[in-house]
């Protein structure tokens, strides 16, 4: 087994709807999709974001696009219009997800 960072096998784009942060996680190829589908669970994402995401994390699968969709509730300091944070619309949350480490077969 080896430890890799998600950024090596996936791209991400994120945005907002109110206080919800939405992340599209796109695997770089078919093999990478199998890995993220198995390893990047809603639970793992919730743990990854520690103090940042206060609410639940939902995951949806898009097998046709080799992508996963994550919905992070209570994740943007109350939402773009009232947050004191600097990433008001959650544009950088997806990049933060790419910091995640996962274990894969050699």
């Amino acid at each position, binding site marked *: 087994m080896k430890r890799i960072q998600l950024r090596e096998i996936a791209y991400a784009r994120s945005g907002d709807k109110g206080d919800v942060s939405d992340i599209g996680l*796109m695997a770089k190829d078919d093999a990478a999709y199998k890995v993220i589908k198995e390893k990047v669970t809603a639970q793992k994402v919730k743990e990854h974001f520690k103090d940042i995401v206060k609410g639940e994390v939902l995951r949806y699968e898009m097998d046709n*696009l080799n992508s996963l969709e994550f919905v992070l509730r209570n994740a943007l300091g109350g939402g773009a*219009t009232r947050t004191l944070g600097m990433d008001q619309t959650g544009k950088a949350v997806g990049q933060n997800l790419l910091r995640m480490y996962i274990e894969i077969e050699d």
Partner: protein
Amino acid sequence: MKKIRLGCGSASWGDMLDPAVELVEKGDIQYIGFDHLAELTLSILQRMKNKNPKRGYIPDLIPWMKAILPTSTKKGIKVLTNAGGANPEEGAQEVAKLAKELGIHSLKIGVVTGDDVFPRLPEIRKKGIKLKNLDTGEEDIDRIADKIVAANAYIGSESMLEALQKGANLVITGRNTDNALYVAPMAYEFGWALNDWDKMGAAVTIGHIIECSAGCCGGMSNFWFQVKEPWRVAFPIAEVYENGECIITKAEGAGRMVTEWTVKEHLVYEIHDPKNYLMADAIADFSNIRLKEVEKDRVKVTGMTGKRRPDTLKLCIGYEDGWIGESEISVCWPDAIEKARFCESFLRGRFKHLGLKINEIRFDYIGVNSIHGSLSDVPHPDEVNEVRVRVAVKTDTEADAGKVRREVTHLWTHGPVGTTAVISPPPPRQVVSLWPTLIPRELVPTKLTMLEV
């Protein structure tokens, strides 16, 4: 097979104008849509209207139409825009005036209203509709009732379609869904029934792909490093076929790129559940979509389907929620992080000493952790050349929020050695919080008015 080409000319208030002009001049399009509204925008516009009943539309509507209409009317390109904001009627009157000044005599403007339910909230609540907050779960709007500044429903394409059927070549609306600007022309041109859910699902999906302007052709992209001329931006074109398939492309010679990746990046953007992308016109299902780059900068999108539209519309209520005061100052090597902590301690103490009533406070060390928070890799202290210290405070009053910038400026002369880079701090801003909720569709009838120049 019949096809039409629709361009996206704007994704928000403040988006770039010249790529839209390029689309109208060189895009070989028949329609162009302009979205200028974000979740907060209607609250800003409603307050403008409260001060002056002649205002409340997006001010950019006038310069934008000045740049677009002479060419669009000459070429027969129809324009759909939600820049009417909180006051589509007055926006349309101003555009009509402008058209006369420009010598345009062939303008038929369709004005769509009905999204603004603010004046009807008491009546709606009397029906027993509680307007539960979808973010927080709060059941009832009682707590915020006297602080509400705007309440707008995200309406669908019906009245816009009617405008096109009545010969409009410019449609001005308020808070419709962004993608309805594109659904209406597709339904009109292809005669798609508004209850043909697969076609409506396809229309919503195509609208979603292009509605964020550069979002599907190299803006906000993971592939930014492939862009050779960053200053050249392109806005997208959807070439839609009668069978509901489409090709995403851009104007000949425009900058950036359209690839399977750039389209995919936008397909997965802000959609929540990909099998149930809820919009006023249909629920789109993204789970069978295929993307294929058929030529350079031409990506074919197939497999779009849909389901019956929801019985409720999204309703966004904006309410006044205190003030935010914020400011920044820089500290430098050596010991930059320690100096930043000194500044934080100074400010926390000063705010307490001055008796500021603070509801929420946040410090950011810009350059260290301001974007990725506690997940940031913090560098070794010796490697930090500088830190920009930012403080943001939420207060009940403007006066308390105003004290924040004064105290930060004091760090210039009362902070650690080398503290510098004071800029004119922003004035306190009033917070409008959003209360997202749902409203039964039948309570939001829309209305079309035609205006001819």
